[in-house]
């Protein structure tokens, strides 16, 4: 003997974004704070030590912001022209920046005037960074050269002129104090060892390199340029691991999150994409108002700061972890109620009787089980079900239709209920997943209540609404078919040989639309 089988509610897979752990994580930021800078923000750098201030380089100033401050804590503005690439040292106490004039300034974060000035580059310096031994600075400039400087003596240690175009980005290895990389507009990324006279490795990116990044392990190198983000294996001699093309404009900045599990890239197409570093698939993306030039993520992913071309600094803070433990703590039965009888171990001679599992049926299922069609329909026309889970309502309607009792369930209702029914039908009949069933329902309602049309203003209004909704949908479908026809002609002129492939895409699209259309 079979048990009663509950009504199957057809669950449609949700289109669009899937809710994953990543989306939940990256959505956990508050609404952004917008700060206006004086010019395009070309670099943002977080201090590696608490309280994680960040230096923003825009126009001829370097602003230092605190974690929650809207106003800069400190400003370095003694630049004659634009400043570039203000970068913190590993201990967070020194700050180096390049400038349009070609000089490199070294600041103490607590002081005002530069501690050192490194003169030697003839063109604007877009790249400044500290090597991980803390005593040397590397730089790259528009004079195609990259240089290494000694901080205590403020002298140039070595100069490499291997690039054939502007050097715009670079990064120091955290593992080896002598290794740094530079990316240039000559489409290459070069790896230098301070102990040698020339570059150790050259990687062809294929586009002007806008940003480079080394993984904390030092084994992987990420370069961004053009629309591509490429990941290279340095230890295998610069072998291309993966090439990502997820932006449709130049990628301008790269950044890793604190755990090293996710890679972020910002682009002129106003998007920040987040990749998983294991699968190199996009797991999330952010939208911004204008093109993005710079991007930084604070330790523990607490803050995302994005700098735009129009000088707006966009700061997002992570929401505090919700602590709802004490807010709705229900009084629960004492511990001993749970353990009561559970700890008993059956002895060998005991005869165990298993308790039958009680199945819980929904209200409409109970009514359907006892063949009470009208009441079952009433049960699913209650506003909470009708509004939030329309698929349940439609599934019960379909079940009633299958049993041949839909007409009698729909009949004999008063003005209020008919109004409710018609509101539901008029609203949902255009949804493709409900259309086949609701068209039948609409048909029956019009059949049943045709004689009483004109007696109630509310019902008449609903009938008109239904008519409008269906009319609109038909127009829309016609338009879609027209577009499809145009596309077909276009495709037909495009391809001659690969008609099988075309057939596939065509029939997939057409059948869907015709299917929904045919129901009218």
């Amino acid at each position, binding site marked *: *003997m*079979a*048990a*009663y*089988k509950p*009504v*199957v509610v*057809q669950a449609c897979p949700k289109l669009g974004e*899937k809710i*994953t*752990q990543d989306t939940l994580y990256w959505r956990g930021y508050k609404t952004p704070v917008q700060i206006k800078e004086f010019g395009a923000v070309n670099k943002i750098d977080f201090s590696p030590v608490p309280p994680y201030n960040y230096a923003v380089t825009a126009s001829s100033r370097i602003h230092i912001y605190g974690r929650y401050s809207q106003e800069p804590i400190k400003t370095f503005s003694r630049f004659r022209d634009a400043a570039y690439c203000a970068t913190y040292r590993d201990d967070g106490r020194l700050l180096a920046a390049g400038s349009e004039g070609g000089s490199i300034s070294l600041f103490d974060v607590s002081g005002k005037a530069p501690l050192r000035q490194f003169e030697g580059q003839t063109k604007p310096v877009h790249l400044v960074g500290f090597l991980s031994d803390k005593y040397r600075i590397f730089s790259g400039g528009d004079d195609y050269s990259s240089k290494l400087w000694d901080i205590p003596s403020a002298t140039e240690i070595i100069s490499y002129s291997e690039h054939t175009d502007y050097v715009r980005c670079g990064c120091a290895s955290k593992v080896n104090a002598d290794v740094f990389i530079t990316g240039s507009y000559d489409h290459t990324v070069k790896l230098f060892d301070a102990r040698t006279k020339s570059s150790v490795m050259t990687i062809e990116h294929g586009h002007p390199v806008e940003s480079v990044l080394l993984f904390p392990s030092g084994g992987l190198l990420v370069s961004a340029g053009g629309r591509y983000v490429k990941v290279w294996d340095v230890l295998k001699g610069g072998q291309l691991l993966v090439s990502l093309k997820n932006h449709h404009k130049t990628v301008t900045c790269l950044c890793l999150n604190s755990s090293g599990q996710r890679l972020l890239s910002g682009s002129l197409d106003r998007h920040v994409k987040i990749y998983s570093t294991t*699968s190199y*698939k996009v797991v999330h993306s952010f939208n911004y108002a204008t093109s993005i030039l710079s991007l930084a993520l604070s330790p523990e992913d607490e803050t995302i700061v994005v700098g735009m071309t129009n000088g707006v600094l966009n700061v997002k803070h992570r929401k505090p972890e919700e602590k709802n433990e004490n807010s709705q703590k229900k009084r629960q039965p004492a511990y001993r109620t749970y353990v009561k009888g559970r700890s008993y171990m059956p002895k*060998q001679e005991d005869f165990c009787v298993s308790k039958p599992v009680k199945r819980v049926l929904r209200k409409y299922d109970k009514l*359907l*089980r006892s063949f009470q069609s009208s009441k079952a329909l009433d049960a699913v026309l209650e506003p909470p079900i009708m509004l939030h889970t329309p698929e349940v309502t439609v599934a019960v309607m379909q*079940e009633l239709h*299958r*049993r*041949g009792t839909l007409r009698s369930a729909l009949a004999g209702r008063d003005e209020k209920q008919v109004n409710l029914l018609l509101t539901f039908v008029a609203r949902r009949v255009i949804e493709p997943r409900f259309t*086949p069933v609701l068209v039948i329902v609409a048909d029956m309602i019009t059949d049943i209540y045709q004689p009483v049309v004109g007696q109630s203003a509310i019902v008449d209004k609903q009938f008109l609404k239904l008519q409008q909704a269906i009319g609109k949908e038909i127009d829309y479908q016609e338009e879609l078919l027209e577009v499809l026809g145009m596309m077909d002609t276009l495709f037909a002129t495009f391809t001659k040989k690969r008609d*099988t492939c075309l*057939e*596939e895409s065509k*029939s*997939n699209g057409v*059948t869907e639309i015709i*299917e929904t259309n045919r129901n009218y």
Partner: protein
Amino acid sequence: AGVPAACGCSGCPGPLSRGNGLSSRRYLLYASGDFVKVHSVNTEETLGLLCGHADLVTGIQLNPHNHMQLYSSSLDGTIKLWDFMDGIPIKTFTVGSKLLALYVLASAEDSVFVVIPKKGERDTFQLVSVELTKGAGQDLEGKELSVVLDGVGESSKQIAFGREDSYVVSVKDVNLQVYFFKRKLLNRFSLSTVKTKGGDNRFSCVVCHPTEDCIATGHADGKIRLWRNFHHKKGYTYSALHWHHDTVMDLAYSLEGTRLLSGGVESVLVQWHNESSCQKDFLPRLGSPIECISMSSDGVLCCTLHTDNRISIINSNLRFSRSIQGLIKSRDVKTGLVVDPRTKALVLNGEPGHLQFYSLQSDQQLFSLDIVQRQYIHQAGLKQSDLVKVAFSARGTWLATVEESEEVADPELQLKLWFYSEETQSFALNTRINTPHDNHITDMCFRDMDELGDDSLILVTTGRDCVFKVWVMVEDSDPEAHQSVSWSCDFVGSYHNYQATNCCFSEDGSLLAVSFEETVTVWDSLTWDLKCTFCHPPGNIRNICFGRLTCSKYLIGATDYGFLCCWNLLTCALEWSAHLNVVVLQPDPLSEHIAAVSWLSKESSLFVFKPSEPWPVYIQRNLCKEKILLAAFVPRDEPETISSEKYLWLRKSQLFFLTDTQELMTLSTKSLEERLTPSSKQLAVEESLPVTPFSVLLGKHRRQQAQEDTDLGKPVVHNKQEQASPAVKELLHTPAHVLPSASFLCTIFINSLLISKENKSAEEVADEVEMESEKAEDDSDEEDVTAMEQEDTSHMELLGEMTCKLSKSQEKELRKIRKMDYSWISAF
């Protein structure tokens, strides 16, 4: 080899007479086709098969004077008296005309009542009493007939005998007649023929109250009427009970008459208390319409017989207890006969919306898989959805099913893919695709590639919407998703907007053949390019299949206009064609042979051929009178040895057919008796050796012991002792379901193993050793056993050839062992 005979293999439902009886709560007897089957109520096992009738058994009744005897009547005109426990016919009475129902009364010792067709008139039947002559021989004549009632119904449910057999009631159409034996009085009552409120008040069945003068009749409009005072022609009264919405199929009174059971199309068993309409209980959802209800002789159990060839046993408190089922009869076998590669079971439509897995070896349903997963409403005129197509992957790990509703214009199609999970040992739904095609799906097949595993699985469906679709497995990239793979459409192909009718993959999976009305198209399964087309006008293609093994370069097709064509795929030309109206084309998966069943002028013929040769290997004309709709090759577990060259094609697999009357047949080289003997031998209680877990354990152990002994060069001494013990023999030879509990048996068993004190011999030592090792083995302490055995055998070696001379200390030791407490064994 004998003449191959097509014979019904499964319990086809037969007439389902009310005569099935539960005898004393232990045995359930029912008529099934030409046989009467005896089942144990407790274990559901078949205990016996009474065969001897030459036609359908129409009625069975227990002998009221001897509860181990059974009367049965058959369409072949004989009444047989059986000892059903031994399966022996005691007497055969030949009546002559067809017997349609049988009634045996306790009061009339030497006569029985049967329903026979009236001579000279069609469709009129009469109830006659047959005098059972008491003769010495086994075959007797039962020619002395006396007519009791005329114009009775054909069905056994339309006649009932009243309290203390004082009257008989018969119903037919709207007439009820009561005949009182003592007063020789016949009362006729009739209902108005005018249909009131659209109801049809014709009688469908009748029963009599066991202790009162009351008749309960069931009607076609679902009413039950209770008649009283029918001794008077005018003063009779009746009251009505109404719950059923359709015909009341059968009624039954409880032993005391306080409860009345009724059943019908709704497949709900209704229990009415005290003949009042307000007090009733229900047992709903019994699966399929109830055809018959029968009470056991002690009134504790009742069983219902269903239209789908199933018997449910129900407790007196209206609880479903168990069911006995063979091949479930479904309304229409749309899925075809499919063989499950995993269990070798035959898979076809079962209960509505279910797929039944039917084991051919045991004539039992293995399990029933709910595909549609919707509540089935037993009501006429509803558009039900049902299963129409089934396909298994080569290893049986994937199952694809298609279900559609009966509506012609807008079939609600669903394609479902099921994955066999090893943990739960059943199929779990993996993917559901709504509306895979816009019109009915005509065929479906998996790409069978055993060597490549399940990753390369491809499913192809063809539809009347003029396309075929290719479905592939997609790995879910999201690691958090609860299932790793799902199915999606990969390719849609069509050919000149013709309806796609059949599809078939070649053996190596490289080619796909799809038939589009008159044309067969061959596609490359890698690139989905159209390779070539074949056509044999006129007529649409009905079936296609590829040749196998050495004949894999051939493609076979059968057309509507009666042509069987064989195309060579290498030359792309027609190899040969034959004029044959092929209904079924079925390739053997294990050999090159292809079976074709043709239907010509009311007979089905079988042709078996190899594609490489245009002449058939085997022809069987006039296979059966019914139209054969489906066929399947079921691989044998081990190749059968067939001496005749003519039947060599049956060596590796067996061919099964399903006819339009839903009888399952097979082709066998053995005669019916030969085929039946092994099973019936097993059933005979005394002769059989059922494999109980205990005997298996003991057997294994014995074998092990014997091997060890021979390894040591010792003669096996202790086995004979055991064999000789009558208690052990009895224990091993009795079927498990009649054995008392193990704890009760244990002392007897242990005692039987002990040897009386007189012969203290090496044998005794060996026995003791065995006991010890048995115990140790149960504790799964293998090392100890061997160690001990070695010690003991060395001990035995000393004793080996010499006559037994035991030292005092050894004797003492043995005594100690004897005195040991063995009650721990009762725990097992």
